[in-house]
């Protein structure tokens, strides 16, 4: 392989791996379950997507919009 071919192969591999890593499922439920003191209650909303996530922290239920659900880790 010449230099240009090697560059293309490396870029193609890195792009593929990075995009696969970026697209990995990132479920709010799994993140919430890992939080101490939090209990995942459930989602309500749309048919194919979770619109609202309810988390119980120290007996207090708090709901989050799942579009902004990545505020949830701030509970830590």
């Amino acid at each position, binding site marked *: *392989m*010449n230099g*240009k*071919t090697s*560059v*293309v*192969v490396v*870029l*193609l591999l*890195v*792009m*593929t791996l*990075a*995009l696969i*890593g*970026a*697209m*990995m*499922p*990132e*479920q*709010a439920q799994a993140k919430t379950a890992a939080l101490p003191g939090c209990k995942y209650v459930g989602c309500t909303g749309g048919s*194919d*997507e979770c619109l609202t996530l309810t988390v119980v922290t120290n007996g207090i239920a708090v709901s989050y919009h*799942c*579009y*902004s*659900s*990545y*505020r949830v*880790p*701030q509970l830590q």
Partner: protein
Amino acid sequence: MSWNSADRTMNMLTRLSAYAISTLLIATGIDKLSHWFQFVRVLQEYPVVPASIPGAVGGLVVAVEFLIAASLLIGRTRRTGFLLAGGLFAVFSGVVLHLLLMRVGASCGCMFAFGDARATLPHVIGNVCGAALCLVLWRSNTQLPPHRADGGATVAPPVNIPHSSLERIP
């Protein structure tokens, strides 16, 4: 001199990259359409999108993705497609990098089928590599027939040269 193995490998990689990037763009375009309201909602939170027209911007993004995907699948427009795809990946890189640095935890709006993924470093790396890959392939001449600008390939004699002039060549 005909195409050597390096040229053939490069040509195969060019086609493979074109099909892969085209598949990626079609998949993300369909995903955005099937999660349209979620996509528009994410766009509303983008600082670079005018708040009054997120739907129009979303439609434009999806249309551009499909247009570039189609141009990559057609041999005649493939090089232009690589240039446009490189530009699109560069824009995506800038947007995701901005979200990563300025709005930690914001959705990237990339692919909703696998969950509303946050803008992360792998998104930036993937888009930057995609832009670089497309620009390298755009600059490559291996998609062209063997009349290469670098003179490394055989140039067939024109068919209309008089036979007598060919005979004078020692």
